[in-house]
């Protein structure tokens, strides 16, 4: 961080000013002039927090995608299908057992196992043939999409959230002050906050695992230089298997999460896959911190886009992607 400030003092200043302005927008009571430009503060705050929590969901999906890509050069275009399948499975188990947390765990395990099977029976045999692997993932996504349509049809599903998670909470953020002088606080669904906190915890744990454990170091070294892995005599296949399982499992996990605060239906797989693609392209391919930054940017762009320029909300995210590609083809947080 301090190196960034040293290298780009002007950009650092802009960033600090922007952050300060954002803090002002969040904390201050808005003067009428501001409300004329940006609309009501409650709308703005809700969009902001929605964007951040949506970013949490995107991070869960995209980090698995980027990890698999970074290590194995496998552009897993079936990642969205794994997400949707995880969501459906979570729905079934939550209805069967009534345990939301349990359904998260089960979805993670089953999808991770599916990922292992795919890596073990298919991708292991085409190592280094990244295009062929990608084509296989396209075929798998088509097959899975149709199988899911067969089993669950075209209806909407929502994973029931547990009672302790339902209902809004009051955030210590003032949205407006009544004429009586009484402050109005922001009400926000607890489940989204919990899920966001969970995403942050998982992100931090992943970062620690990658940076502080021996296996993590190996994976990171493998992302930088894959030949090194085999040169050091590591059981590459085992590392690949583990990473694929973990990345796929995260997608399944995210499916339950997304199924709780959004909904599950055919087509959701493509939507989530595209979101992951854009997140990873913006953040930097193969980089976990990049996925976090990209997820935050895209989540915010989608939410603010849908509030302030509803017609072009989705397009806004792609505009961001194109700008990043033109300016830094390797993504925001990836060296060289």
């Amino acid at each position, binding site marked *: 961080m301090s190196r960034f400030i040293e290298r780009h003092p002007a950009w650092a200043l802009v960033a600090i000013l922007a952050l300060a302005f954002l803090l002002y927008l969040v904390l201050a009571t808005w003067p009428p002039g501001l409300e004329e430009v940006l609309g009501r503060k409650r709308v703005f705050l809700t969009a902001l927090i929605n964007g951040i929590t949506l970013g949490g969901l995107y991070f869960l999906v995209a980090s698995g995608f980027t990890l698999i890509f970074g290590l194995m*050069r496998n*552009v897993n*275009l079936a990642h969205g299908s794994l997400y949707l399948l995880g969501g459906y499975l979570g729905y079934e188990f939550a209805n069967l057992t009534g345990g939301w947390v349990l359904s998260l765990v089960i979805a993670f395990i089953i999808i991770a196992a599916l990922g292992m099977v795919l890596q073990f029976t*298919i991708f292991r045999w*085409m190592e*280094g*043939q*990244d*295009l*062929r692997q*990608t*084509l*296989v993932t*396209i*075929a*798998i*996504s*088509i*097959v899975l*999409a*149709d*199988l899911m*349509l*067969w089993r669950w049809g075209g209806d909407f599903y929502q994973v029931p959230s547990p009672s302790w998670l339902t209902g809004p909470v009051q955030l210590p953020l003032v949205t407006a002050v009544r004429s009586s002088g009484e402050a109005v606080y922001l009400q926000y669904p607890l489940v989204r906050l919990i899920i966001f906190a969970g995403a942050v915890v998982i992100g931090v744990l992943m970062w620690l695992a990658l940076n502080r454990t021996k296996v993590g170091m190996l994976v990171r070294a493998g992302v930088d230089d*894959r*030949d090194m892995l085999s040169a050091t005599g590591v059981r590459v296949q085992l590392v690949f298997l583990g990473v694929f399982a973990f990345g796929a499992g995260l997608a399944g996990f995210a499916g339950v999460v997304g199924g709780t605060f959004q909904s599950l239906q055919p087509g959701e797989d*493509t939507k989530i896959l*595209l979101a992951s*693609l*854009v997140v*990873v*392209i913006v953040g930097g*391919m193969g980089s976990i911190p990049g996925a976090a930054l990209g997820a935050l940017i895209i989540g915010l762009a989608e939410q603010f886009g849908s509030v302030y320029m509803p*017609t*072009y*909300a*989705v*397009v806004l995210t*792609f505009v961001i*992607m*194109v700008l990043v*590609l*033109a300016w830094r*083809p*390797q993504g925001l947080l990836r060296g060289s």
Partner: protein
Amino acid sequence: MAVEASRTSGILPASAPAPTAASSLPRYPALWLLALFLLILPAFGSDFVLIQLFGWTFILGMIALSLMFLGGYGGMVSLVQMTVAGCAGYMVAIFGTSAVAEISLGWPWWLAVVVAIVIATLFGTLSGALSVRTEGIYTIMITLAIASAFFYFTLQNYSIFNGFSGFNAVRVPQVFGIDWRAAVPFYYLTLFWAVIAYLAVVYVSRSPFGLALQGTRDNARRMEALGFNVTAHRIAAYAFASVIAAVAGVLLVWHGGQISPGTAGVGPVVDILIIAVAGGMSRPIGPFIGALIYVLLRTFALDVMEAVGLDGKRFQLLVGVGFLLIVLFSPDGVLGLWQRWHRRFLAPAAPPARGGVR
């Protein structure tokens, strides 16, 4: 260097059956027979066969051909080709005439077509320029993202693209007193352009530019060391491929008479990749073979599946499994299968078959 080559293996790298165009020239009697068959087909084929089977095959084949050019010769698997075609189709509807009179400008058909091809080519070239600065496999991600951006934009924009409903009643013009909407003229129109596109790709593949493009596919760093501008060659390849896709897009909108966001949605975008891969990306004839199979499946699979007692709704499953099998067992698609068979039974002395897509 060898390490890098194996790592970035885009598509059809090093050891793929080289798309040497010399061997795809119509030297074989089979190709002459095929040409004759296509020429006299209108004499006995029904309108359905002419338009719904062969017309559609030629159009999809051209779009897949533009992908084959980029993938097979340039090592860049672009998913934006269907979108370029869609863009051209939209432009024909917007600048020309359609049922949506409040948007369509009603320009003369030839002007609308030229403008459409120019704009779509620009769009394809720009998309290429955005994606070529990263290495091999990223192309597929970036172009998929661009393709879906276009899809969502057309879906959400009403002032230019007329949103969800798009444009209908986009008619083929009457020129030289011929009604090109009629089955036989339209069949020959699509056949003509498909042949032109095919010959253009075959010819260019042997030109200095085409050879240099194949050089960048095999070893981009060595090409740079030889004094070639690799990025410029790749962008130029996108421009060339975009012209083919754009022409196909004009035919596409005339073929269906309408265009809407779904025309270039994620499904059709991926279908073009499936067509090119299933047909075989090593030769320009591959995409047309793939297109014919696709069109036949699309048209008849439902009936056949139901006739043998399967659920016709599971068509996508069939496509997915079929594609999976091809990628797993014959990476060079139907062309690869045919070559293997040909070598085994007809020319045992020929060198052994090599894998295609890696």
